[in-house]
């Protein structure tokens, strides 16, 4: 009786199996030795890549502030210059003479002041005694004050002359590199004549024209990745974005500052650099690249589901290192076979066995 029931039930089972599509086996597969890997979710940023130009924050052309002939240019193009170094020498004879003359003027004024002061001291005693009139006293007092003012004036003239003398020695305003020599020794310069151009490498930023269709997102995230020549990325969150677009190119001038701590980065002013601005973030599913079975135009994975392998079609997105983004076909925490070749063998063997 029991055996009959067994036979009957197995018959039912057989007919039941027969009606199913052969692609799916309900029997568990032998998955020993097959290692699985979970589908993970990862926060990835969407970016837009733009070309930018590196510019130095400090870049200046030094001009003559006084006239004269250039007598010495101690530095040449490419030389490292420290702040305070004399970078050009201009003839100082005239300026020196002016200093000397001013000095003489000061001395003269001082002498006159001493004389007027003494006169005042004298007349004051007399006036107290009521010997001289008030008018006479006032006259002497004014003369003393005038002499005092003349001293101040002469001293100012001396200071001015000294400054002019100092202009004959052109001093580097900041440390940097001399990039251009605009005059040669012997040239006569007047105030305003450009002499030398220098640039500071320590302080650079990147100038990017951001097209109008991306500016909203760039403003929102204020984050950029600078791609360096060696392939590494430098993140910057210090963006200066122009409030209005350039009317002709319809792009927004955006300055990307280099972070302070990244002083060792070699970004040379004037060079083109790619900058990727973050325009959004999204959760994406990623799986190891090796777990994808690429068969012709089909990309698929073997999903391990309750002791069974399911060959599932997936759509792939970007590749990120040894991982690849899955756009559709998988859910987070799905287990997939990490070795597709081994998985295919198990799948086919068990489907053959099932038949």
């Amino acid at each position: 009786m029991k055996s009959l029931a067994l036979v009957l039930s197995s018959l039912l089972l057989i007919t039941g199996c027969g009606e199913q599509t052969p692609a799916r086996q309900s029997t568990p597969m032998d998955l020993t030795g097959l290692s699985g890997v979970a589908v993970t979710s990862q926060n990835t940023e969407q970016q837009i890549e733009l070309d930018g130009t590196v510019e130095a924050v400090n870049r200046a052309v030094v001009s003559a502030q006084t006239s004269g002939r250039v007598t010495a240019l101690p530095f040449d193009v490419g030389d490292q210059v420290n702040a305070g170094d004399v970078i050009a020498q201009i003839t100082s004879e005239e300026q020196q003479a002016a200093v000397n003359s001013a000095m003489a003027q000061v001395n003269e004024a001082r002498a006159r002041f001493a004389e007027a002061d003494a006169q005042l001291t004298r007349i004051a005693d007399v006036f107290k005694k009521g010997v001289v009139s008030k008018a006479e006293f006032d006259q002497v007092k004014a003369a003393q004050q005038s002499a005092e003012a003349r001293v101040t004036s002469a001293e100012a003239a001396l200071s001015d002359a000294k400054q002019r003398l100092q202009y004959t020695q052109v001093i580097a305003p900041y440390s940097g590199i001399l990039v251009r020599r605009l005059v040669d020794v012997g040239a006569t310069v007047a105030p305003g004549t450009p002499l030398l151009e220098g640039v500071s490498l320590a302080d650079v930023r990147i100038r990017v024209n951001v097209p109008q269709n991306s500016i909203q997102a760039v403003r929102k995230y204020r984050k950029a990745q600078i791609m360096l020549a060696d392939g590494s990325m430098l993140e910057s969150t210090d963006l200066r974005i122009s409030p209005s677009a350039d009317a002709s190119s319809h792009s927004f001038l955006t300055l990307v500052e280099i972070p302070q701590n990244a002083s060792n980065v070699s970004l040379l002013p004037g060079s083109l650099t790619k900058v990727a601005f973050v325009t959004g973030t999204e959760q994406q599913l990623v799986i190891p690249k090796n777990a994808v079975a690429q068969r012709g135009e089909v990309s698929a994975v073997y999903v391990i589901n309750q002791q069974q392998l399911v060959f599932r079609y997936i759509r792939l997105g970007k590749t990120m290192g040894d991982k690849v983004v899955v756009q559709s076909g998988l859910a987070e925490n799905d287990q997939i076979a990490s070795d597709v070749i081994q998985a295919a063998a198990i799948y086919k063997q068990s489907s053959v066995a099932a038949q």
Partner: protein
Amino acid sequence: MSVEKPLGISGRIAKTFLTTEITPLLALVGLLLGLFAIFVTPREEEPQINVTFANVFIAYPGATAQEVESLVTTPSEQIVSELVGVKHVYSITYPGLSVLTVRFKVGEARNDAIVRLYNAFYSNQDRLPYNLGVMQPLIKPKGIDDVPVVSATLWSENPGLTAADLLNVAHSVEAGLQRVAGTREIKSIGGLSSVVKVNFDPARLSSYQLSLDDVRHALASANASANAGELVKNNQSVQLQVGTFLTSVDDVSSLVIGVYQGAPVYLRDVAGVQLTTNTPAQYVAFGHADKGANPAQQYPAVTLTVAKKPGENAVDVAAGVIERIEQLKGVVIPDDINISITRNYGQTAEEKAQTLIKKLIFATLSVIVLVLFALGRREAFVVGLAVVVTLAITLFASWAWGFTLNRVSLFALIFSIGILVDDAIVVVENIHRHMTMGGRTLKQAIPLAVDEVGGPTILATFTVIAALLPMAFVSGLMGPYMRPIPINASTGMLISLAVAFIFTPWLFLRLFKNAKLHAEEHQAAESQAKGPRYQALFTKILSPFLNARAGRGKRVGLLLSILLLIGVSVALVVSKDVIMKMLPFDNKSEFELVVDMPEGTSLEQTYAAMQQLAADLSVLPELKNYQLYAGTAAPINFNGLVRQYYLRSGANMGEIQVNLVHKSERSRKSHDIALEARQLIAATAKKYHANVKVVEMPPGPPVMAPLVAEIYGLDYARQQAIAAKIKTVFAQTTDVVDVDDSVEAAQAKWTLVVDRAKAAKLGVDQASIVADVQAAIAGEDSSYLHSQTRKNPLPVRLTLPASSKSDLQALQNLKIRAASGELIALSEVTSLVKAEREQAIYHKDLLPVVYVTGDAAGEADSPLYGLFEIAAALDKAELEAGNNGIEQFYTAQPANPYQWSLKWDGEWQITYETFRDMGIAYSVGLIMIYLLVVAQFRSYSVPLIIMAPIPLTIIGILPGHALLGQQFTAPSMIGMIALAGIIVRNSILLVDFIQQQVAAGKDLQQATIEAAAVRSTPIALTAIAAMMGGFFILDDPIFGGLAVSLIFGLLVSTILTLVVIPVVYYAYNYQQQVNKPN
């Protein structure tokens, strides 16, 4: 009897092989050859008809239909018409394109024909100047092997998988399938290919002072890469590659296409760049009724079709393909994609072959059983073995001849089984007779016995061959289709003759060596019992008609009543009790809906209509699945090949392939289901203004449509007007359905006319305007994205966004760079002219023609009746003001169509040709029979008597058709022709016997009655054997008519022959006998 005359050829053959050791080995070899043939012969459902034709496409962009017609089409038609072996040249001239269809005669060697065609076009290449704008002709030969044998449809219930994904899978499966031996073209139908769309914005382009040309240039030049040679460094050579390809959408969108005001302009600044699916040019969907699924539910699908190489066995290829698909599951085919086998000609062929081989075996067995009862156990064994050997060798001969195992070649064997067995029966019976006479050893008696019947047997065999063989020369598509019948049956007859003379005597000797006595007694007893019984019967029947002059009145009465019966039988045709038709419908498990929306309908509208049509069909209980192909052609079948359905691609066209459950699982025939389908879809078709044709697989050679009226004349526009009137006459005729014509619905056509003077002044050339507008509307593949895995290139397509394509304003904003570098708006140099699209012009054999087509449904179900009804109605119809009727032609194109003429074509033409050729074959057969009989009987008049019963077959055939409700078809005609041979054989035996008896000195009347009595047994035996073969074909939808002809024709004519031949012979001879003594 004791006079030893020299043995005839048959006797000598029998004597030679009676004792040699080689005889059984020959038979064994024959059997083995037969087995070999069964395994090796390719199987098909229908015989392959080697029909070669080619499509020639010649493009002449921009030209009007009339210009293309006169400059391209007509000269090309002339070139093609010069070729040997061309049967018809059809052409359709569209604006800007000429499509020629060159149809070669059936049986023309394919390669020769194609070489001739290429040669014709290449040697005339200098006819037109190269810079005229007429493109090179594109020649695409088509043949039977372009018909896919297997189609598999990929579909998924997972809504996340799109048609593009399905196409990816299909592409990846293709290579796997191609590895199956014997496969030919493998194609994917449907799905959406991927494309990188660069949807440019004309306004933005112009704001950056850029033209489309800049974009085009940037795209093309950015994708250049090459191997630049090798560098040598440190004693190593280093390969140098210059440039890299565009590999991602980001690469494309970040392309700098120009610099404006110092800022780079990226492609994404002026265009939307995205990887997307192509704008659908077709929709393919799948619906099924498996396991309670809702058949109205439709899934996006892609259909893979696999054709086979010529000469390969469809069964093996199909099985291999299906096995490979199973293997690819889980490796290439993901689990949530289903693959339904939607066509398997291998399986249908195998099934057909299996059933027919089974039928052949049963027919053989039944004949052996018949012999068993009629002659005896051992005789049955001898006859049975002889027939098996005959069939085996015939199957081998059929393979060697190049036939496949198909419905026709196997039917030829089944139907001839009755005749094949006959030689063996006659020989066995006569040896038997000689055995009972005694006096000789078996070894001595056999050659004599064989020799005695040898002459008449050879003659009888040759009369049957004479009747059948002329059919092998039937021309047209029907010739090769039917050819296995005359060839296989004739070969079988010859082989059966040889077997009867070589193997049968040997086997008889082996079996009866020790059973002589027993047989003698048995036979003697039998002949004792039999003789008088039939004698009395025939005396009673025949005597009234004999009796010299006294019986004359009765004889005349007999003649008259027979003539009356023939008249009544023929009247059955006139009264439509017997319907004449070329071939009846087969019971196939598929049919098609061919949908034509009015020209100018959008693809989406067509798809919507077709979805509704498919939903209408889903109520059919026999439905298995259907595939819907909007905008493209379904996988073609032989019918579609001849009707050129594969050229059907356009937004307003579509096909629905309907697959029914296997015929064992349904009670209705496919034709009845198709008739119901036509009712079901009528409302929807009307609602959407769709012309929907229900197309069944024709059983035999396909034609353009069952009813075709070709209208000729001197003015194409007025021909079209007349066609419209004729179309209404078609539609008004009862039982004429699926009416259509080749006149296109009016469609709008806009022409952007370039003001040449203005353009020249501004320095813009027309060519760049044409190129830019073409890129904007049609799209231009400026570059390709490179990928590691793709099978098909991924184009980067420059085009306007679909939403702004309808807006001409956006288009006219497009700027073109002038020679000066300035940008000129398109609107400045062009103006828009709105007009109607020109009609396509059809030609047939160089004459402009307009087609009106239709199909027949309803009671008559034969287009011939509809044709004559329409023809009568047309004579009365006013087709042009004040002008009734039209000149109608039935057999050939009008030689000089200076007035409106109509030529009937379609099934009529093929029916006419086939019946004409078969009629000729029949006549030739009769003449040959006459010659054979004259040679044998050495008389000019006796053969006429012998052939007298041929008309008697009609008395059986036509009422037989009426009785069973069968249509009188080409196979019926074949049966009738074969009958002539078989019936004549009976008369020969009768007349021969009478002559022998008279020569032996018997009274004529006595001899006549005796002849009927004695010969009735073998005659009846032959007739019953042949009828038994027929019974097994009776249920076949196509060859049922042949069976009806055979069974009823044989039944009636055999009975009548036994009466009429003796009577006629007597009537002819009694005078002479009476006169002689005087």
